[in-house]
């Protein structure tokens, strides 16, 4: 197997009496795209946020690129981990351009580099030139989501954590972006974790799939493995639901 970029070791998390994650141990392969799918409220976002230290596991530990995530060094590590939060989370006081390029400016990128990367991302995500100086409140839902994605990718991080990044996009735009993403993935090799509810998207963009159910891993494997040998009824239902299964 390939080397891993994130290792979850015996991760447990609960809120009050309710346990959300039950001692999960698994790893995410490096240089591949892994899709995490599963029920709403099953802990997908929580798992993602443990990889960049926003959520601290109750028991167990998470390592990214072989170093353990802990509060001491996490700020530096985060620069290598792009993250787009579920629901955009843009800074309301910053323009689209400022939202996307803030971290690059803070990292003292040259103006030219910043402009180039910004242009590249805006094109990649099918965003209009004239959004540049607009503020988040004036963007449509899908535009906000894409700007958030640009922000996550700005620093060309070797690891991308994307929490339902395309959920607010229409199918046509989504298709175009999927194609671009696949191209990009070949150009800039990187690891990517993608939380999604679109099984078609999962199978198209990802090489590995993790199915989460009720705070446990239902199945983990390559796309083909999972599509061909669903480990449980739930996994099968997932692929059948939403019409895709009709194919």
């Amino acid at each position, binding site marked *: 197997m390939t080397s891993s970029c994130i290792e979850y070791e015996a991760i447990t998390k609960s809120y009050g009496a309710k346990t959300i994650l039950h001692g999960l141990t698994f790893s995410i392969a490096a240089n591949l795209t892994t899709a995490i799918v599963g029920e709403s409220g099953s802990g997908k976002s929580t798992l993602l946020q443990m990889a960049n230290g926003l959520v601290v596991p109750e028991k167990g530990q998470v390592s990214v690129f072989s170093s353990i995530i802990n509060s001491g060094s996490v700020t530096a590590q*985060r620069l290598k981990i792009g993250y787009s939060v579920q629901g955009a989370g843009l800074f309301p006081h910053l323009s689209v351009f400022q939202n996307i390029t803030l971290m690059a400016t803070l990292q003292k990128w040259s103006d030219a580099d910043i402009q180039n990367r910004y242009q590249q991302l805006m094109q990649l995500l099918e965003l209009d030139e004239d959004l540049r100086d607009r503020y988040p409140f004036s963007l449509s839902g899908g535009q906000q989501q894409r700007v958030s994605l640009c922000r996550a990718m700005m620093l060309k991080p070797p690891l991308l954590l994307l929490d339902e990044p395309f959920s607010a996009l229409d199918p046509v735009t989504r298709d175009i972006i999927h194609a671009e993403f696949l191209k990009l993935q070949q150009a800039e090799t990187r690891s990517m974790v993608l939380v999604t509810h679109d099984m078609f998207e999962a199978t198209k963009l990802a090489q590995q799939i993790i199915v989460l159910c009720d705070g446990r891993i239902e199945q983990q494997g390559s796309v083909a493995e999972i599509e061909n040998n669903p480990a449980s009824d739930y996994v099968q239902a997932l692929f059948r639901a939403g019409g895709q299964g009709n194919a």
Partner: protein
Amino acid sequence: MPRYITNRFMLVFLLAISLFAQSGLAQQSENPLSITVGSKNFNENYLLAEVLSQLFEHAGYTVDRNFGMSGTLIIYEALRTGEVDVYVEYTGTVAQVILNNNDNPSLEDLNAELLSQGVEMMSSIGFNNTYALTLKRDYANELGISTISELAVQPDIDMGFSIEFLNRSDGWPGLVENYGFTQQPVGMDHGLAYQAIDDGSIDVTDAYSTDGDLDRYGLLILEDNLNFFPRYFGVPLIRSELSVQARTIINSLTGRIDETRMRELNGRVLLDGKSFNEVAVEFLAEEGLVARVDNANASSTGMSVMWSNLWRNTAVHLQLTFIALSLGCAVGLPLGFAIYRSSRLSRAMLYIAGLMQTIPSIALLALFIPLFGIGQTPAIIALFLYSLLPILRSTITALLTIDPVLKRVAEALGMTRVQQLRHVLVPLALPNVLAGVKTAAIISIGTATLAAFIGAGGLGEPIVTGLALNDTSLILQGAIPAACLAILAELLFELLERVLVKPHMLVGQLPT
């Protein structure tokens, strides 16, 4: 467009300031037939000095007005050393304060003593400005009294006196001794006493006999039938080398203004809101001393000293509050940012800042003398301490109420603590933080008057002096610029907010 507006605002603002500054610089000039007239810093003395000045101007003199000097010793020293040629003094003061080596000098001794210092006393202008007891004219008629002796035997009289009058031996204690009062007066601020008498809260209070307020309130002065109160006749003091011509001009005022007349003239300034210049012009015309002509061109220079005082006080006031507020921000903002995450630390700091807010200012200043001496430093530090609470509290609360999702995102992007502050927390908290800073600024401007207690100057100086002298015009010379400063501060903060906070971050009417 907003930047353009900003720049224009700035321009207008700077222009206004520089004009204001220039108006404060009194123009000096030299002339063979020239004279310097001085005055003390209260209305009556200003007015008499202006009358003298205009008399001289009509005789062809160039007059240098050196008005508004504070304290008898200062203006007398100015006369002695030739910086002032003439000013109006009061006989009681001459004997008591200026010439202090003689118990109850004869007029001759007094004049000799003055002459030895190069000074001469001219004949009295006529009025005696001393303490007086006063009550509503109507009420006096009702009681059928007109002398203090008659008042002393009225049983049901409510009396309110200034604290000073209550304590001076030539005030209440002496009255009790001489007239046998048995009533028990209450002490109150002199300025408030007039209002109280008008209101019916008290019946009798103390006053100066030429006070312009007396007519306003329809007050009668009771005759001091036992001649208890000392005499304070208004007399011009001059330098003895003054020419005969100048003396003649000054003497044209001799005996011309009695108490009633003086009160009425003071009232024109105090009640009718006329300028000293206007009243002087009117008076000279009424007395036939000067035809009522060329009113306009004599006007502006007369006030130049008042303007320069006003400008200096305002500048000091501005400086005090600006430094104190800057310190308040320099300490309060970083402190707030440093501790807002810990509710225990926040509370502790807010308690401390709150305690400092309740320490009476005089006590706080007292604590500071061993540390910082007297003058501006302790005043600034006190103002700084008073500004801490609003700044600190609004900073902490504003930071606490920022959307936690955005705080989380800022962390996730890999920003350092400082970068989070600079680029996310501060901009998002800014409107509410600014609200606290603005409040602190306005409160500072209001309380900077305490600087006057400790010799630091500022607009508190005319206010405190005005309150002591019951001189409304002086109070206003402090209060109005302070109010203007408050408006100015609001405008500046609005500018600042316009530059720092995007309009869409402050949504009143929802955009549609």
